[in-house]
C-alpha cells in the first residue's frame, strides 16, 4: 500500500507540470496583458511599453517559461506582478477561508445528502422519494449565486441572524467563524448535496435489489442495519467516486460563492488574477489546485479499500 501511495504521489509531478505548461501556454496566447492595467488609463503608450519591458513580458515564450520553470523547481512560485508579494504568501493568506468553506460544505452536504439518498431509496416510489428528488433537482438547477442572494436576503437582511459577507478565522472563535460561513456553505453545498443525494439513491436502489440484502432481511436484520451496514457500505464506492469528481465542481462553485459572500479565498484570488493577467499568481494557483485535485483523487482511490476489502493495491 505504501509503495502504491508513493508511486501515485510521484506520478502527480509530471501531471502537474503538464498542467503548468498548458496553462502557461494558454496565458501566453490569450489576449490582454497586465502592463496596460498596471499603467492605468492616464498612462501614455510609451509608459505601457516601459512597464511591459520592466516586467519581462516582452521576452520570448521559451525564456519566460524556462525562467518560471526553474524557479518552480526551487519551490519558488514567483512574485505577483501587481502586489509585489510572493505568490506563496498570497496563497497562504487565502487558504484558510477556502479550506474552511469547502470542509464545512462537505460536512453539511454529505451529512444531508447521504441520509436523503438512503431514505429516498428505502421509500422508493413514495412521496418521500419524490420530495427528496425534487429538492435535489432544485438544488442542482438553481445557480449558486441565486441561492446565495436569497439566503443573504432572508437570514441576514430580514432576520438579522447572520452576516451578509466576510470571513472570520476560527482562531477568533468558533461561533463567529460559523456565523460567517454557514450561508456560503449552504449555498455552495446545495448543488453538491443534490448531486450526491441522487447518486446515493441510484446506487442504493441497485444494492437493495441484491440477494445478500434479501438474505440479511431474512436473517432478521433490522431496517437500520440493512440500510446502513449492509447496503450503504456496498454503495459507498460509487458515492465516494462522485464525491471526488464533484470536488472539482466544488472548487468552481467556491469561486462564485466567495465573490457573492466576499470571502477572501483562493477562488477570488484566481478570478482577480485572471482579470488582471497576474500571470505568476494564475500559474501558482492553478498548479496548486491541480496538485490538490490529484491528491483528492488519490484519497478517493484509497478510500475504496476501506469500503471494499476486495480492492487492494
Amino acid at each position, binding site marked *: 500500500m505504501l509503495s502504491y501511495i508513493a508511486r501515485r504521489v510521484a506520478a502527480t509531478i509530471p501531471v502537474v507540470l503538464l498542467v503548468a505548461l498548458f496553462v502557461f501556454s494558454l496565458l501566453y496566447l490569450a*489576449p*490582454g*496583458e*497586465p*502592463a*496596460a*492595467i*498596471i*499603467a*492605468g*488609463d*492616464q*498612462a*501614455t*503608450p*510609451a*509608459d*505601457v*511599453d*516601459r*512597464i511591459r519591458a*520592466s516586467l519581462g513580458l516582452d521576452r520570448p515564450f521559451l525564456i519566460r517559461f524556462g525562467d518560471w520553470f526553474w524557479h518552480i523547481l526551487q519551490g519558488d512560485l514567483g512574485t*505577483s506582478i*501587481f*502586489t*509585489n*508579494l510572493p505568490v506563496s504568501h*498570497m496563497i497562504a*493568506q*487565502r487558504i484558510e477561508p477556502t479550506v474552511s468553506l469547502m470542509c464545512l460544505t462537505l460536512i453539511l452536504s454529505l451529512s444531508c445528502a447521504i441520509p436523503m439518498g438512503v431514505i429516498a431509496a428505502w421509500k422508493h416510489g413514495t412521496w418521500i422519494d419524490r420530495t427528496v428528488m425534487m429538492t435535489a433537482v432544485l438544488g442542482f438547477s438553481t445557480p449558486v449565486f441565486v441561492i446565495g*442572494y436569497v439566503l*443573504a*436576503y432572508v437570514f*441576514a*437582511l430580514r432576520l*438579522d441572524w447572520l*452576516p*451578509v*459577507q*466576510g470571513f472570520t478565522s476560527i482562531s477568533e*472563535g*468558533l*461561533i*463567529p467563524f460559523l456565523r460567517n460561513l454557514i450561508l456560503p456553505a449552504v449555498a455552495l453545498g446545495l448543488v453538491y448535496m443534490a448531486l450526491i443525494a441522487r447518486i446515493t439513491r441510484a446506487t442504493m436502489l441497485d444494492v437493495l435489489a441484491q440477494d445478500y440484502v434479501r438474505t440479511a432481511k431474512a436473517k432478521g436484520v433490522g431496517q437500520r442495519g440493512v440500510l446502513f451496514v449492509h447496503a450503504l457500505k456496498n454503495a459507498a464506492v460509487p458515492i465516494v467516486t462522485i464525491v471526488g469528481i464533484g470536488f472539482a465542481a466544488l472548487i468552481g462553485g467556491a469561486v462564485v460563492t466567495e*465573490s*457573492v*459572500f*466576499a470571502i*477572501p479565498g483562493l477562488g*477570488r*484570488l484566481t478570478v*482577480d488574477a485572471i*482579470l*488582471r*493577467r*497576474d500571470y505568476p499568481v494564475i500559474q501558482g494557483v492553478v498548479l496548486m489546485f491541480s496538485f490538490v485535485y490529484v491528491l483528492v483523487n488519490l484519497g478517493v482511490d484509497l478510500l475504496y479499500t476501506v469500503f471494499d476489502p476486495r480492492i487492494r493495491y
Partner: protein
Amino acid sequence: MGNGVYRRSFLKTAAVAATGALAAPRLSLAADARTLRFIPQANLANLDPIWTTQYVVRNGALLIWDMLYGVNDQLAPQPQMVEGHQVSADFKTWTFTLRPGLKFHDGEPVLAKDVVASINRWMFRDATMGLVIKRQTDALEAVDDRTFRFRLNKPYPKMLFALGKSSTPSLFIMPERIAATDPFKQISEYVGSGPMRFKKDEWIPGAKAIFEKFDGYSPRAEKANWLSGGKRINFDRIEWQIVPDAATAAAALQNNEVDWWETPSSDLVPLLRKNPNVAVDIADPLGNIGSFRINHLHPPFNDVRARRAIQIALSQEDYMGAVAGDDQALWKTIPGFFTPDTPLYTENGGEPLKGKRDYELAKTLLAEAGYKGEPIVLLVATDVAITKAQGDVTADLLKRIGMNVDYQALDWGTVGQRRAKKEKPSEGGWNIFHTWHAGADCVNPAPYIALDSSGDTAWFGWPKSDLVQQKIGAWYEAPDLAAEKTAIAELNKAAMDHVVYVPTGFFKGYQAWRKNVSGVVKAPFPVFWDVTKA
C-alpha cells in the same frame, strides 16, 4: 453520576460560550466607533501611486503620503507640507520651505532631499506636467533640510497646480530611499508622512487593506477642504473591504457591516434610499466625461469628415441614458471637452453636438470620406458597465449611419492591450473604443491626457493637430484667468473641429453611507479627514 457530570460541564461551557458571543456586540461598540469600514471603488492591488495611475491607488495613497500642495474644492492648490514659497518675477525660480516638524511613519524627519527625490520620480512618470517641468528644469536642489528650489530655463506659472494636482500620478512625498526606486518598478515599502500608516502585515490584496492612525502627524491649522487644510482623522483604523459583488455590498451597508460605499451602482440606489439608516448623495460634483475614442491612424477615421459624421449623428442623451439611467440628476449633455460648472468650461465650437441628430448628413460625410463598408472594429470591455453601455449605443449608432460594425466583446485587460496597437484594424488594431475621464482631470489641459494631439506620442487614438497643440500651449502661457478662458475657448473649438475624440456626455455617480457617519463630503476622491461615526 458520570453522565450528570458531563452534562453539567457541557451546559456550563455552552453558557460561557453563549455569554461570550452575546457580550461581544456590546464590547465592540466602542471599538466600532473608532473603526471606519469602507468599500472602495476597486481592488487595491498595489500601493505605488507613481508606478500606476489607477485612481483607487491614489485614493489609498492620500492616506499614507502627504503632498506639498493640496487642491481645495475650487481646484486651487493650497500649501500642505509647504510653509510657503517664493517665485521669481519671471516664474523661473521657485523656492519652497517645508513646514517644521513633519515626520515619516518611521520617525524620521521629512527633509528637502526626500522631496527632491520624490519630485524626480514623479516627474519621470507624469506626462502632462511632470515631464514638461523636467524638460524645463536646469536644477532641482535641496538648499537645506527644509528648503528646495527649482531653477527653470523657461517660465512655468502652473507650478503650484502641478505639485498639488489630484489627477494621477499625483506628487506624493516619500523617504528618499523609497523615492529612489526606478519609476517603472514598484516600491515595496509604504512609509509616508500622511495621517495614516498602512498595515502591510494585515493587507490581503483583493480582500482588505488596513490603515492605522499615525499619531505623529501634525495637521495644518486650517479647516480641511478636499486635499487642503488640516487632515484630522477621527478613527484609529480605516478598513478598506473589497466587496466585488454590488448586491452584496448594498446588503452589507444596509446590515451595518460596512459604513461607507464609494461607488454604489445606480440601479441599487433606489433600494438604498429606502433604508432609513442609509444616506445617499452625489459622490463627485466634478463627475466624469464619457469618451468615444477614435483611431486617427487608419481609414475611415483618418479623414476628419468621417469623424465629423460621428459627431453630428451621436446623441449624448442616448449614451448618458445607457450609462446613468433615468435619473436626470446624474447626467447632462455637454457640447465641449471640459468639465461643466468649472471656471474654464466652454461650449465654444460645440455646435456639432447640439440640436437634432442628422443621420443623412453623417452618411454623406462618410461617403465623401471614402467609406465603402469596411468593418469598423469596435472594442467593447463588457466587464465594465460604463464601457459596455457606451459600446452598445455605438454599435446601434454606427448601424444607423450605414456602417459595418465588428463588435468585439472583450474584457478591460484585453482592451487595454489592443488599444495600444497601431496596426490596421484588419490586422489586430482597432477603430473605436470607449472609456471615460474623471471630471477632475478635464478642468484644464494640464491633466487632460486625452486632448493631447501630438500624433505619435499622443494618447491612444494618436490624434494629430498642430492647432490644438498650439492652443494647449497658449493656455500654459496664459498669465491670468481671463487669458486662460480665452485660450480654453479656442482650444475647445480647435479640438471640436479636429474631432480629437467625441465626448458622449457628462455623468456623475452616487456614494452611500450609514447615517451614523457624518462629515462625508462630495469630492473626486474619498475624503476621510473630519469624518466621524457615532
